[in-house]
Structure formats: C-alpha cells, structure tokens
C-alpha cells in the first residue's frame, strides 16, 4: 500500500476540523428527547406541537418517551399543585444528566391566575428551569421558538470540560473568558458526595 494523504478521496470528503464541544453540543441539541408532563390544558397544546401540523420532528425533539430514564428535556406543561410537586421532583431526579427543564405556560412559570393555597407559585421553587414560555396556553409556535432558544443555549455549554480538566488554560487560554461565559457544565457538575436537589 502506498502512502495515503488526507486530501485524497475519500478522506477529503469525510473529515472536517472542528472542536469537540461544538460537536457534542450539536448532537445534544438536535436530539432532545422531551419528557412531557401535561398537567392541564397546556398539555393539549403540547400534543398539537408533536402532531403533524407543527411537527416538532423538524427540530429533532419529537421522540417523547413517557419514562424519565430515557429523556433529557422535562416539559412541565400546566398547573403544578403542591400535591403533584413531589412526583414532578422525582421525575426530574430520575432523568439522566445532561438534562434541561422547560416551564410551559404561566401556571408553571408563576402560578398564573391560581393564586391559591394548592398551586406551586412557579416551578422554579422546586426545579432548575432553563426556559420559560409565556402564554395561557402558549401557542405551539411559541413552544417551538423556546425549544430553538434552548438549543442556542445548549450550544454554549462546555460538555468536554470534565474530560480536559487536567490541561491548564485549555478553555480561556489565560484570558479569563471561560469565567465570563455561561457554562452549565460547571454549574451542573456534581461534586463527589453532593446531595440530590443541590441544583437550585
């Protein structure tokens, strides 16, 4: 066999130079598996969003699994009562990392018009929320827009930081840029012995 160069076919069409963070984020953001928690009328709009008319499959997030073990995007759609809050928190804890949370509708975000003793006044008091969707209920377009915003945010993460932790100055090259950028990988990184629920 003679010497093969990367500029020769087929390699010239099969390789691309990029950075690992970008590739991992690109794969993650385009294959979000939602865990639908349809708690009230927002669940109906959620179903419409999965349906053919709005077609969430265009953004790679149509594989809704009704088990938290296979999901990475928790969509809390609707009014969350204190009686239900324990179940929702358990669902979140059962999801594997990395995971994101969407608060769909005003009831999930703030309690909405249910300013009462039985309703959680915003799910951010029990869960770390990544994206809020206003509306009562929000249109499927709005939810798709928020999923795109979440994808943009996922693209900013640094998932390989743990792998490359030993390399000095890898991330900011001594400029301090990594400290200024949003970096969920650092926030979500579990220290040994950290407790569940320490994320909020």
């Amino acid at each position, binding site marked *: 066999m003679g010497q093969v160069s990367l500029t020769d076919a087929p390699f010239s069409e099969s390789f691309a130079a990029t950075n690992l963070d970008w590739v991992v984020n690109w794969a993650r953001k385009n294959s979000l598996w939602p865990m639908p928690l349809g708690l009230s009328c927002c669940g109906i709009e959620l179903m419409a969003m999965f349906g053919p008319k709005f077609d969430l499959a265009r953004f790679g997030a149509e594989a809704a699994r009704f088990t938290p073990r296979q999901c990475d995007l928790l969509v809390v759609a609707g009014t969350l009562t204190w009686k239900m*809050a324990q179940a929702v928190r358990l669902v979140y804890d059962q999801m594997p990392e990395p995971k994101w949370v969407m608060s769909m509708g005003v009831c999930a975000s703030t309690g909405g018009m249910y300013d*009462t003793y*039985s309703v*959680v006044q915003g799910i951010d008091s029990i869960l770390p929320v990544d994206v809020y969707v206003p509306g009562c209920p929000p249109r499927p377009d709005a939810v798709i827009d928020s999923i795109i915003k979440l994808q943009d945010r996922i693209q900013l993460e640094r998932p390989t930081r743990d792998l490359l932790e030993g390399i000095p100055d890898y991330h900011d090259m001594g400029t301090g840029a990594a400290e200024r950028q949003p970096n969920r990988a650092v926030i979500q990184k579990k220290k040994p012995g950290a407790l569940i629920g320490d994320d909020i």
Partner: protein
Amino acid sequence: MTDENNEVAENATQTRVSELLSSLECTVTCAYDGMASVQCAPELIHAICAKLKTEGGFEGNTLVTAIDHGAGLEQRFEMVYQFLSMEHTQRVRVRAMTTGDDPEVDTITDLWPGTAFSERECFDLLGVRFAGHENLRRILMPEGFEHHPLRKDFPHIGIEPDKLYQKWDEERRSAFAEKEAGK
C-alpha cells in the same frame, strides 16, 4: 313544563314530606328554588334521612355538604343534604344548623353507602366530622394537611403551602445522605 305544573309538584312534595315527618320535630317549607326543605336539629338528621329513605321513597342521595356562615358565629356550620326520589320524581333538602367550630353529626353512610365520598370531601374542606364513618380521611388535600380550605377564616393563599413538600424533600435528602455516607 309550565309554571303551573311546577307549583303543583312543589306543593305535592311539601305536603307529602310534611305528612311523612309529622312524628319528628322539624319544619317543612318550600325553598325559594321550589324544593321542599326540611329544617331540623343536627341530632335528628339521621332519623329524618332514614324515614325519607324507607318510607318516603327517596332512594338516592345527590348532595352532602356544609355551609360556613362565618368564623366566630355561635351557629357556624349548616349541614345540607339533598335527596331524589325517582319513583315520585321529587326532590327534598334537609338542613340543620350546628354549633361550634368543630361540629360533629351522624353519618348516613349506613343508609346510602355512596355518601362516604361526599362526607369525606365535606370533612376535608370544611372540617365537619361524621360520627360512625368508617373511613373519614382526606380526599382532595394531601394526607398531613392541617387546615380546612373552604372555611371562611382560611386565607386563599394558604398557610405555609409548601410545608408538606419541604418536609418530604428534607426526609429524602437526609435518606440520600445516609446512603452516601454508608458507601
């Protein structure tokens, strides 16, 4: 159905119920909505209900609830029952004023087993106790909830609404910490 017919039906119910309950101490009137209304003492509720069912043909219960007339009143809670007779196509209402902040009346689950749920709801939301009820626990609010939300002196935003969740959360965390420490 014309108004004339309505009036006849009301009067017939009222007359029939009055005759039926003549041996018991109660007053039978025609309520503003046209339903025959029996007013009695809370001790007589069970006796009147038993008579309505066995002799009056009121085989169905449609409502068990209470009205909170306001905190601090001597006669605070008013019990309300409604019954239906398919045989006579008549309805009747039984009302009784109770005394005190923590009233107790006799259960009617021995007459209509289905009222067990209505009485549980009444106990859960208004705090009325039903003596003789076999399974008198909360039905809408979670176990461990300390208040009765439909009472007039209960604030609509609640009293420490997250108390039960925080308690559960702390127990869960401490159990997890113990498990981690044992490793």
